[in-house]
């Protein structure tokens, strides 16, 4: 199986690392220009109300203030922050304006000041006085669903969806199981907060926008439509991004900053503070789920029924789509003859919840996997055995979409993972240690999951790339990459380097720019390496083909006899006469009169599932409620790791984030006022390096036929199985049935008390 590659599969550090480590890498917030203006927003001071008066008189007196925007002087036009493409206009309901008179959560922006410095803008914001007429609150989903609840939007507070396959209600089964799950709100914790720079050129009447977004084309469509400008007059460029985890995939600041730049015909920058990032971007949804299943006595799943209630916060934004996706993922891991899914996304007078890494997979996996762990326990079955009995096989069709799951390797993940983790041995050892009934209790837990590798079959999976040889034989690749900081640029370079045998530092590969790159949806669905990687690979192969034709002409031989090794063309038997890319380019351009470039578009009509399993062992302190992760293993079916080091990095980040979701992180909301009680990291103790386990990882590398060099996605699935595995390990250790996340020390001590 092992092929002799030069770059693919080699553990190389990210080529952007030098700039990051030395602090010299330029992010959007680092950009400066002469005359650049800065923006700050004033946060509203009621949780629900109508603005009755805005007094900006004192604010205007602050030197350096150029403009003040409120609902009174901005367009009464709505936009969709969840847009991915022009054609997807109904992805999210258009509920947002730049500024609204109707304030729906505490901290919502009520005004913006544009000034010559951030400090001036901030001071002026503090001097704006706003009066409100307060409206009744609907802080909890329960309150917001009452018939007499205050309505946040004309379309009502609740979005409802229903999906089913088979006839769950009609399944006759002796064994019916029910569990409940609660997931808390989290913040994305990307190092870089939201930042947008928009510059309006008076001479060209054109807007250029820099934003660390996951979709330059989605951003352009939103901005151009909102400002009523042709696409030819709006250019969006993606600079370096300091992490997303989902928070850079929605149009939070792009419409506002673009509007202001155009209005003032200026260069304007707006950077969120951490407080704004937490309150005013979006959080991970909190949700309540009720899961019911019917399973026969041998442990074969007969059907599942799921009811989910998801808190959208003050605006629905992408929540309806997110909610549907949770339901849509129910048939992707196990053979399911009957599925029933009912979901509600509820608007409340609290900060907005939205896109988060794995887009429903971490939620669906938590809901379902904690349920299967419970069922296995009730049946007296080992959780690994239970899953081996029920998982999908290669090429099975998942019933909800009728699409093939491809060569997804659940069985390998389960078998190789449990063997490497020593699942049975650890389980027995924990049980033995717990017999002492000491201060510390031990438990193991596991979970299985899957994730997508592309948009197919929801959308055609199109991707394009262009590549050209430069006069010195170096390479330029144009591919609309949106690297989150996780190394997809490096992955593309490695693919190009492997095909064209060009050294990595002789490849230029810029990130997405609407003006000089082919179209792309953006970085979603863990699709970049699979889909765009394929475009780059095919493009480079075709370019190599062209170069071979030139070399054949130059060497005077048939083009199908040309060999290419270590960056040199030659033919047998004249092994001594060799041409490099520079010489071939020269001949091509100066003698044959043809430049050496290629552009190609691919259409990966496939969405091979990636499987993932997580195994973990915990030590619970029954005196303090603290949970220590003694050992854990993530197993992922990546097809082929283009860069194993970066895959391991992704796995670690998934584990870190999953631990947060399971045990630590929650942006608490005041149950009375609906205010976010945590707006910085002082009381938000994420897993840090000192507590992070020395995790193990195992990559199952069976090449995926349709992926570049066999590769599939890895970026999101790494999060999905962590929380349910951890929750199970804690429950095993304590003999509890906890499913209310996060399992913080107080929650754990309470549960211990109840068990006693």
């Amino acid at each position, binding site marked *: 199986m092992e092929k002799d590659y030069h770059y693919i599969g080699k553990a190389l550090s990210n080529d952007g690392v030098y700039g990051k480590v030395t602090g010299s890498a330029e992010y959007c917030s680092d950009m400066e220009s002469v005359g650049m203006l800065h923006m700050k927003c004033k946060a509203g001071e009621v949780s629900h109300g109508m603005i009755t008066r805005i007094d900006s008189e004192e604010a205007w007196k602050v030197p350096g203030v150029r403009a003040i925007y409120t609902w009174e002087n901005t367009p009464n036009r709505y936009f969709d922050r969840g847009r991915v493409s022009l054609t997807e206009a109904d992805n999210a309901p258009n509920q947002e304006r730049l500024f609204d008179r109707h304030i729906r959560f505490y901290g919502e922006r009520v005004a913006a000041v544009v000034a010559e410095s951030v400090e001036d803008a901030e001071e002026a914001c*503090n001097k704006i006085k706003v009066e409100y007429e307060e409206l009744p609150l609907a802080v909890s989903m329960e309150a917001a669903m009452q018939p007499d609840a205050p309505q946040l939007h004309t379309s009502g507070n609740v979005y409802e969806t229903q999906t089913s396959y088979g006839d769950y209600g009609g399944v006759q089964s002796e064994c019916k199981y029910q569990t409940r799950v609660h997931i808390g709100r989290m913040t994305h914790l990307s190092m870089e907060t939201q930042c947008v720079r928009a510059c309006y050129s008076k001479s060209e009447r054109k807007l250029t926008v820099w934003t660390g977004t996951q979709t330059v084309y989605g951003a352009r469509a939103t901005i151009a439509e909102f400002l009523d400008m042709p696409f030819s007059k709006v250019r969006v460029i993606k600079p370096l991004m300091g992490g997303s985890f989902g928070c850079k995939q929605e149009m939070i600041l792009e419409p506002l900053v673009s509007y202001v730049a155009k209005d003032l015909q200026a260069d304007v920058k707006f950077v969120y503070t951490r407080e704004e990032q937490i309150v005013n971007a979006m959080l991970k949804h909190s949700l309540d789920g009720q899961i019911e299943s019917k399973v026969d006595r041998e442990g074969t799943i007969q059907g599942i029924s799921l009811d989910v209630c998801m808190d959208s916060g003050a605006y629905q934004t992408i929540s309806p789509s997110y909610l549907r996706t949770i339901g849509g993922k129910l048939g992707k891991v196990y053979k399911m003859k009957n599925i029933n899914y009912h979901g509600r996304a509820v608007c409340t007078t609290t900060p907005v919840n939205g896109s988060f890494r794995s887009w429903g997979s971490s939620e669906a996996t938590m809901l379902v996997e904690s349920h299967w762990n419970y069922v296995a326990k009730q049946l007296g079955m080992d959780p690994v055995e239970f899953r081996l009995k029920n998982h999908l096989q290669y090429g099975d069709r998942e019933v909800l979409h009728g699409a093939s799951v491809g060569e997804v390797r659940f069985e390998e993940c389960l078998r190789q993972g449990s063997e490497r983790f020593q699942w049975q041995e650890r389980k027995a050892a924990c049980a033995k240690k717990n017999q002492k009934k000491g201060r510390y209790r031990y438990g193991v837990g596991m979970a299985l999951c899957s994730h997508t590798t592309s948009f197919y079959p929801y959308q055609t999976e199109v991707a394009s790339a262009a590549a050209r040889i430069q006069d010195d034989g170096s390479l330029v690749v144009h591919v609309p990459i949106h690297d989150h900081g996780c190394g997809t640029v490096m992955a593309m370079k490695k693919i190009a380097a492997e095909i064209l045998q060009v050294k990595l530092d002789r490849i230029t590969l810029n990130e997405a720019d609407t003006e000089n790159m082919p179209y792309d949806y953006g970085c979603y669905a863990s699709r970049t390496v699979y889909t765009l990687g394929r475009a780059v690979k095919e493009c480079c192969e075709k370019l190599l083909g062209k170069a071979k034709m030139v070399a054949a002409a130059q060497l005077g031989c048939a083009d199908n006899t040309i060999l290419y090794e270590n960056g040199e063309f030659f033919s047998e038997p004249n092994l001594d006469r060799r041409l490099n890319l520079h010489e071939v380019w020269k001949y091509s351009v100066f003698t044959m009169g043809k430049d050496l470039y290629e552009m190609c578009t691919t259409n990966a009509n496939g969405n091979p599932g990636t499987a993932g399993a997580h195994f973990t062992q915990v030590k619970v302190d029954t005196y303090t*409620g603290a949970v220590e992760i003694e050992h854990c293993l993530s197993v992922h079916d990546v097809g082929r790791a283009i860069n194993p080091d970066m895959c391991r990095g992704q796995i670690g980040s998934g584990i870190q984030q999953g631990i947060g979701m399971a045990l630590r992180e929650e942006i608490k909301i*005041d149950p009375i006022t609906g205010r976010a*009680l945590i707006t910085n990291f002082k*009381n938000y103790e994420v897993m840090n*390096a000192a*507590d992070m386990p020395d995790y193990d990882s195992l990559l199952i590398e069976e090449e995926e036929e349709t992926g570049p060099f066999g590769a599939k996605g890895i970026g999101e699935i790494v999060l999905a199985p962590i929380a349910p595995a951890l929750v199970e390990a804690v429950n095993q250790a304590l003999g509890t049935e906890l499913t209310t996340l996060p399992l913080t020390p107080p929650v754990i*001590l*309470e549960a211990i008390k109840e068990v006693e």
Partner: protein
Amino acid sequence: MACEQYIQPDTLKELVTGLAKMTSDSVILAGGTDLIIKLRSRHMNPDCMLSLCRVPELKSISESGGYLRIGAMETHDNIANNTLVRKECKALAMACSHVGSQQVRNKGTIGGSLGNASVAGDMLPVLVLFHGLVEILDSAGKTRKVDAQEFTLGIGRTILQPQEVIMAVWLPLQSHRESCFIKLGGRREVTIAEISLAFSWERSGQHFHKIEGVLGAVDTKPIYLQEVDEILEDRKVGKYEMDLLADSLSKRIRAIRENRKRQPRLRIQECEKVYKERAVKGIVYDALEIMMRKTDKKSKNI
């Protein structure tokens, strides 16, 4: 954040002159790990900022007249790694080694921590344990020493007047005594104390004498624990004693909670409200297990 005047004295004499310019709207910069955040988040515009970073008298750790004198501008990291401190006042070294992050310990100072008077501060419980003194300098150039117990008045409030500054802390040298400090937080590193506990004792064989204990982070001021000596004095400490002490501290914490007018806003669920009184058992066990370990006083493992 804007500041009208910035004073950075190089000598003690200049410091005294600078102090005279301070008003109730002025601030003292002693590392900045708390101050800068506070100024930014509260949009404070102090009339004057006085930096202590250049005054030599505020730095140095030395023995003087039966006391260990630690300059107010000594960083947490310096104190944690000072051999004299580790030998004589191990609890202080242990406390300093877990303040904030390494970056915070490199900049943050003991004087700054005391002046900030956070309820969850790790310095004051140790000072109270050692019956330490806080030396205060005023704008007339006079110094006075006050008992550590009396230094803090409440959350963020101390006895310091606008024209006063902490010069040093003084800890009585008691080489025959051992000590330890331990805190319970959400993380091992970079964590804010939910509860902290400091003990000092004399050892003879497997027994302890003249045991003193201080409980921190549960009330507006550290609590001197009278019952520690009653429960542990001259006994071979076992589960019974540990549970007895844990129970006593739990009751103290519950009483504090019940007497509070306003409950902490982040403790929403009932189990969060009672967490400290439940979890104190863990930290009592941890501290007593450290005590019972026959450790070499010069041990570097803290």
